[in-house]
């Protein structure tokens, strides 16, 4: 029978909480910035400007068809060769934003394309300007349509952020690995680390649900 010994875990719980706090900050910042990148990317991808369309298309394809681990190594170990030296936390944030931005662009594009053409024409007929049309007629319904897909991508982003421990960022996964190297209580440590990630996921999805209620509680058009 395996004897659980949680003493090493709870004696160093502050380390794990500190790691979890970095994971939360990193993920939250990457979600907010990633949303901005996604919306801009989707607008560019659906725009009539051919060049813009192609550039964003290339960005999406490159990022979605390469592993995150390689992207983060490129940013952290590769860029210093051309004089750009990013600290581990900053490199991690940029890598996460760039990564989630590519997936988010496609999700947001699907949202924009789901808005019926006739709705936009109706807006034009009512005399709305292009910005007003985008804001009230395209953006909000588009976001509402793809909200579940976008938020699950964000939760996935939070879980993916555990990879940043490979470039020595001090996130929750790295705190767990450090503690494991010190105490060798792998089973207990990763049980608690898993529980903390699960708690963070539930926290974020709770937050997203609350936001959904606040932002999109107007009656559906269909």
């Amino acid at each position, binding site marked *: 029978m395996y004897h659980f010994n949680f003493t090493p875990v709870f004696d160093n719980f502050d380390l794990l909480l500190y790691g979890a706090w970095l994971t939360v900050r990193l993920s939250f910042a990457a979600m907010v910035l990633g949303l901005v990148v996604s919306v801009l990317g989707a607008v560019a991808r659906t725009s009539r400007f051919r060049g813009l369309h192609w550039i964003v298309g290339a960005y999406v394809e490159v990022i979605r068809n390469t592993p995150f681990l390689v992207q983060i190594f490129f940013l952290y*170990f590769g860029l210093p060769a051309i004089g750009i030296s990013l600290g581990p936390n900053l490199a991690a944030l940029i890598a996460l934003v760039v990564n989630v931005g590519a997936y988010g662009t496609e999700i947001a594009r699907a949202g924009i394309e789901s808005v019926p053409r006739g709705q936009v024409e109706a807006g034009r007929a009512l005399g709305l300007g292009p910005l007003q049309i985008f804001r009230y007629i395209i953006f909000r319904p588009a976001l509402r349509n793809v909200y579940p897909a976008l938020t699950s991508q964000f939760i996935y982003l939070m879980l993916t952020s555990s990879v940043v421990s*490979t470039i020595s960022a001090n996130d929750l996964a*790295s705190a767990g*690995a450090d503690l494991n*190297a010190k105490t060798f209580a792998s089973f207990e440590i990763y049980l608690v680390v898993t529980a903390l990630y699960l708690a963070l996921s539930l926290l974020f999805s709770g937050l997203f649900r609350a936001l959904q209620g606040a932002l999109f509680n107007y009656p559906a058009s269909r």
Partner: protein
Amino acid sequence: MNILKTLVAAALATAALAVPQAQASTLKQVEAHGVLKVGMLVDFPPFGLMSTAGKPEGYDADTAKALAKYMGVKVQLVPVTGPNRIPYLLSGQVDVLVASLGITPDRAKRVDFSRPYAGIEIMVYGKKSVKVTDAKDLAGKSLAVVRASTQDQAVTKIAPKSTIIRRFDDDAAAVQALMSGQTPLMGVSNVVAAQINKAKPGEFNEKFALATQVQGIAVVPGSTKLLAKINDFIAHAMKDGTMDKISEKWLGTKIQPFVRNGSVKAALAAKK
């Protein structure tokens, strides 16, 4: 019951007899054979490894060849492994071990060691331009280590609070952090440091040592004359540059002072 006991005792006695007794290889025997049988590791680069032609080579192989040359006999390199190297020696299958055997009190109970011929050192290593001479100077600087390595433990113990210790999962990533300039310093062994120096010559240097482990040539206890001859060889090879040449070839540096000035006594005292 009594019969059983007797049987067990008999079996044990037989087993004890079956274990080869430690047979001291005398200097005379080796010289009479004209061959020195040397046990060495072949899975411990750069000290012992197999060449692409399938022959043992490395720091240990070169040392063994120089030793045999000094004794005026031929050399026969016998591949051994970490766990079986001492049994190989004690059972008389090899005359000596030049097998990167670290001089420790436990091993000194079973074999006799020569003075150190090689050493492994873990150290703080980094960019030449960074001024660091002791642990205090690490304050505020960042340093790459492999998570949970001996370097990590040593640095964590002595570094001031403000040192940023960046932990990576393996040697390759930690070395990459140093080479790409992400961290100006690194905790590393002299073996890996030699590889870094080969990739980027002259860019980095040793700052200070964290810990050292010296390695000795081992013989069966009581082989006094053979051991004396080996010690003569090492003293001679240290002086005439043979060991420096071997060390430069495999480790990229001359014999370090902790090896050159080391002794079995000092090594054993340091481990107590």
